[in-house]
């Protein structure tokens, strides 16, 4: 029987909450998982923190977004445009986002080491290089555990909205934190197929059926509990939470004027759904926008893709601010890597991890801050090189968590964030 590699509450792994937190009695006041930074309990109590990650899949070009180099050998044909922060310019492909720069911070000196899509994504979402013998949980699982009320939550704490596909439960991205914090994937923003109760099944019958399922499940688990059974059982729990709050997923219920601001296209709907989920109490939502892997005709495709991204993203920031949610919601725009400064023969840019950019806004972020520089052509970091570990510390700190704490799966101390990195203080409010 496979051992749980997380605290799955089996007899072998029952750890008192206090022992798990490893702190004195005051810990109980510091947020649900006790990882709040000292002094942050008042903030946590006042406004539950949320995190939204907009993931531009494929590797968005930093030269066509946050760090343009016009009229250089690597700059391509686009202009740099002024933003709402004097002295800060971004690509002309983001005219609406440019007006939001006073709410945003840029990190222009990221070196994420790997030019591989899969490895790059893992590095960016875990804040770690891949290591043998351990799989680190993704940011969403970490945030869902440390910020969320997973046990009582009406909705799963970790949701990702995919541009297409069927979605589903049972992702492995929570690793040792357990399936309760694994992501629920919504393909095209829709709950998984066949999730909702069929019309010919009444609520009472469904409740009876569900109670019977739990009874059988609990009896089975008494003698055969494992990571696999836990994951399976959790998927039902998460599904039930989704069904209970099904109306949140229906963006047609949104105020039409608000929906229009986001745009009546897929990405606009997905960002709007993200806002609805965050508003309904989901701790972490990741919205994926596809695709930016432009080895061929990079400029034409970035016109198209950023044309989809720009207006809804600006609308989102305005919407969060209007609802009083921006102060409590950390927003991160990232990718798995950037793109080469060198333009290839087919007008494309290739994979590039050595010097690229990430944008942040919202909770704990100093609006208008720009950290790090690349050289004149973007071929190297010139100042303040950081990597994903630094960003991970920064995300946690921005939402009021202590990024130097540890998890203790199987009593093994695992720092929440890479101890070789530290917070990027310059972009914190």
């Amino acid at each position, binding site marked *: 029987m496979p051992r749980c590699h997380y605290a799955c509450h089996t007899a072998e792994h029952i750890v008192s909450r206090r022992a798990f937190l490893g702190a004195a009695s005051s810990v109980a006041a510091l947020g649900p998982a006790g990882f709040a930074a000292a002094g942050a309990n008042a903030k946590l109590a006042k406004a539950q923190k949320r995190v939204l990650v907009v993931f531009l899949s*494929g590797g968005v070009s930093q030269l066509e977004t946050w760090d343009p180099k*016009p*009229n250089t*050998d690597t700059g*391509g*044909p*686009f*202009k740099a445009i002024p933003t709402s922060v004097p002295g800060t310019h971004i690509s002309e492909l983001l005219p609406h986002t440019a007006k939001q720069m006073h709410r945003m911070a840029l990190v222009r000196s990221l070196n994420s080491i790997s030019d591989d899509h899969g490895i790059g994504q893992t590095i960016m979402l875990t804040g770690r290089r891949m290591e043998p013998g351990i799989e680190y949980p993704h940011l969403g699982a970490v945030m869902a555990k440390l910020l969320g009320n997973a046990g009582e939550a009406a909705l799963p704490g970790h949701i990702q909205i995919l*541009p*297409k596909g069927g979605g589903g439960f049972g992702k492995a991205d929570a690793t040792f934190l357990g399936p309760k914090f694994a992501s629920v994937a919504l393909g095209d923003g829709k709950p998984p197929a066949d999730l909702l109760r069929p019309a010919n099944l009444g609520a009472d019958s469904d409740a009876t059926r569900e109670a019977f399922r739990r009874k059988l499940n609990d009896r089975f688990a008494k003698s055969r509990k494992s990571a696999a059974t836990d994951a399976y059982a959790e998927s039902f729990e998460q599904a039930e939470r989704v069904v209970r709050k099904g109306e949140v997923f229906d963006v047609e219920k949104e105020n039409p004027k608000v929906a229009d601001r986001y745009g009546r296209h897929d990405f606009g709907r997905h960002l709007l759904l993200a806002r609805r989920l965050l508003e309904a109490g989901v701790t972490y939502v990741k919205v994926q926008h*596809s*695709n930016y*892997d*432009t*080895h*061929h*005709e990079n400029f*034409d*495709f970035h*016109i*198209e*893709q950023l044309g989809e991204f720009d207006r809804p993203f600006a609308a989102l920031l305005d919407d969060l601010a209007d609802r009083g949610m921006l102060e409590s919601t950390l927003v991160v725009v990232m990718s798995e890597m950037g793109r080469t400064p060198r*333009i290839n*023969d*087919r007008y*494309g840019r290739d994979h590039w991890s050595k010097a690229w950019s990430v944008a942040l806004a919202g909770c704990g972020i100093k609006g208008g801050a720009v950290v790090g520089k690349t050289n004149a052509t973007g071929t190297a970091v010139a100042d303040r090189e950081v990597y994903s570990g630094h960003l991970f510390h920064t995300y946690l700190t921005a939402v009021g968590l202590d990024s130097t704490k540890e998890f203790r799966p199987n009593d093994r101390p695992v720092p929440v964030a890479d101890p070789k990195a530290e917070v990027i203080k310059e972009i914190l409010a």
Partner: protein
Amino acid sequence: MANMNPIDPTAARLERELKHTRPLIGCRFDPSGRFLFASSEDDAIQRFDLLTGAKTTLAGHRSWVRGMTFVGNQVAGSGELSAWQKRRDHLQAVAGFAGATLLPPRPAPFTLISADYHGKLIWWQGDADVPKPLREVEAHKGWARAVAVSPDGKTVASCGNDNAVRIWSADTGTPVRTFEGHASHVYNVAFHPDGTRLASCDLKGVVKDWNLKTGAADRELDAKVLWKYDTGFMADIGGARAMRFSPDGSRLACAGITNVSNAFAGVGNPAAIVFDWNDGKPKVLKPKENFQGTAWGFAFHPAGFSITGAGGSGGRVWFAKPDDTTTFHMLTPPTGVRDLDLAPDGERFACAGANGTAYVYTFRPLPPDAAPVKPTPKKK
């Protein structure tokens, strides 16, 4: 065409390389055929004088240029120009360096109009010693992708990423009219040789046939074979990268990429769709070989055959007979071809190379005492 033996496309050979330090984007011969203008990724246009070998930089754009067109009459054909070259060569052979004192003939005046990816059109005195911008017009929001001049030299048409086709006075640059109706970026425009019609083609392969008097699109032709929405990467690829009428106006060719299976890696094949202008019936022209890439340049030769230039997994130039749907002859330039233009007298054509070199090919037979020109090997 100047008097010469019938053109044999299979005799096409590299005549010269015109080198620049940055990748080229577009190339066009001026009306006399003496100059080749090549735009490049450094926002500049290079003017190569085929008579003297001089290279002059036209600086003024602040973004990439692809569209170039001219107002001016075709004057000295290469017959007269080559006569001057022979006199110079003879003088040098007889009197050594004194041959260099033989001044080249002054070029006849002509205007170059170029279009850039900041949406700007610039007028230049193309024959000036060092051409400077004469006029700048903010023509489009976003890229101005192409520009063309009417056969009578009075009207300029441009198109771009604001989905518009715009008409301008060639003399003054004042706006005349906007043709609206395309629902996606307009990639190319071309005037019919009779001067009464304008064709434009957008990203999604919609070709509009505009009546220049009324401003109405009297019909649409379907070039959707050159467009694909890539569902994997969730983006569109398409558009006529080259668009030309045949000299007699009986055919319209739009060239681009087809059979796309991976837009972001450029996995697709070059193709041209050639419409019978009278009845609109299309024929798709594809190269005989299985080549991965995009057709970026196209020309109808007055002798009847067509020439296609492509880039992608290398560079190619293909020749096709008028009614064929596949090609019969091929050249392999050492780099991706990003544009192609036929000289006014039909004796040569040029390819804009992704490696920064313009390759000029000639149909003239190799002189008996001359060695064939070979492309410069790629640096290792």
